[in-house]
């Protein structure tokens, strides 16, 4: 390597060029969709902190106990790893292995379904103590978690749809886009859960 090469590499024009392989319109579409959905969640969690700081102590108010961490941690252990089978499925479609797609998606479906079931259990517990109308904390808790649960449900619909489409041969190594779109969305739903875990369950203790 010559000094000239290095100079080329280090000059500011290095900021100009881009990768030769461009992204597809579908990639951009789903990323922008995720960006705007992410903003909804950011605003929602931001509202949580705003209301908490404006409310002052104690938080949770009205003698509501600190959120129990055990079940949410189990839920996290179920939901977050569910990104792996999706990623595996995505890797499979690039090599044209349709069975891998189907197996990965099925695993995700099971994990996502379990998550929703656990969320139902948690609601069953919590509803005895407070409901969505009890006070602002109850409203925040149920609205945030339900909103995320709805996203998980949508994600599961997408996975089901993809399973059906994959069965009919709608996806292939040459058309991996649907799998990728679903995968990105599912990763997003997972990542949001981590933020929710931090905000709703951990932050009252911090």
């Amino acid at each position, binding site marked *: 390597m010559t*000094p000239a090469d*290095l100079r080329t*590499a280090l000059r500011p024009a290095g*900021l*100009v060029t881009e990768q030769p392989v461009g992204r597809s319109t579908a990639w951009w579409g789903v990323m922008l969709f995720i960006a705007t959905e992410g903003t909804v969640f950011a605003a929602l969690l931001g509202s949580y902190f705003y209301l908490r700081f*404006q409310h*002052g102590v104690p938080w949770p108010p009205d003698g509501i106990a600190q959120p129990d961490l055990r079940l949410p941690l189990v839920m996290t252990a179920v939901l977050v790893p569910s990104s792996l089978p999706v990623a595996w499925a995505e890797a499979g479609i690039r090599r044209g292995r349709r069975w891998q797609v189907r197996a990965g998606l099925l695993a995700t479906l099971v994990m996502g379904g379990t998550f929703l079931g656990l969320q139902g259990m948690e609601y069953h517990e919590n509803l005895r103590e407070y409901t969505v109308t009890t006070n602002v904390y109850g409203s925040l808790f149920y609205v945030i978690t339900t909103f995320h649960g709805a996203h998980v449900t949508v994600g599961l619909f997408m996975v089901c749809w993809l399973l059906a489409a994959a069965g009919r041969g709608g996806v292939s190594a040459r058309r991996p886009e649907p799998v990728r779109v679903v995968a990105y969305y599912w990763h997003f739903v997972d990542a949001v859960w981590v933020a929710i875990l931090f905000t709703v369950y951990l932050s009252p203790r911090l």
Partner: protein
Amino acid sequence: MPALTDGSAGGGPLAYGDPVTQAWSNLLVVTVLALLCAGYGRGVHELWSRRGTGAVVARWRVAGFALGIAAVLVASTGPGHVWAERSFAGHMGQHMILLVVAGPALAAAAPGLPLALAAPRRLRRRWARWRTSTAGSWVRRRPGALAVLAGVLHAAVLWGWHLPAPYRLAAEHGLVHAAEHASFVVAAALLWSVLLGADRHRISGPAAVLVLVATMLAASALGAALTLAPGPVYPAGILAPHGGDPEADQQLAGLLMWIPMDVAVLVAASVVFLRWLAGLDRALPRASGLPPEGPAGPVPRGPARADPIDRAPARPAAGKDTR
């Protein structure tokens, strides 16, 4: 307003650890900085003696390194530390030096290559092996993904450490405090390296602007939360430890979180964007702005000349410049 949490912290000002741990953590900071200086200096010396002064690692990068080290020193042991002890707002000022001065300056130093050169041979080899492995090349090929990760890390570190409990923990234990500050510097350096770092870590101008602005919004949200909170968010002893209005201290601190970051990002984003646009103009000219029937000046004519865009990307393949 009573103490926010359990009130066990008492009313007295926090001492940021007892003098012994204080001394230890100071020693730790100085040692780490000295090691960094030695490594960076040796790597740069080697490069410059082989290729000539100012080659590979430009002079301004070395200056950036010096600035970064100085900023860390000032913030963690010098006057920054004194401010931090005096008030919460001062402490936020200290954090801002780390986040907005030290981080970007160290990112501009592009310390990866010099430090790798200075590292023992075995470490170097292992590093090189990792870089060429699947995982390593995946990371290397995706500066964009790295940038997003850096942004997320930056926001997480900022929010995480400034929640009341972790903040108090850091304030009480010198080592945790050192870890807090180290994480700020690392997160900020990672974030700003997408803009100022070695070429291979940079992302395109518009993408850098997006990442920076998104991170800025997250930081601003924290600043806003502190500034707009109606009462003290932190337990007693942290806000206005030496008397004064705790709320005013907290509000000032919120603004100190808010403004420097915003200004830094705005200036940086403006410069990057304009520079990117100017670079694009050089590579692919916009050309004359006159209609063809205009009486003035020659208008580009003739068959479609080769536009630079039809050539292969001007940039060497990624990784070529990394030995």
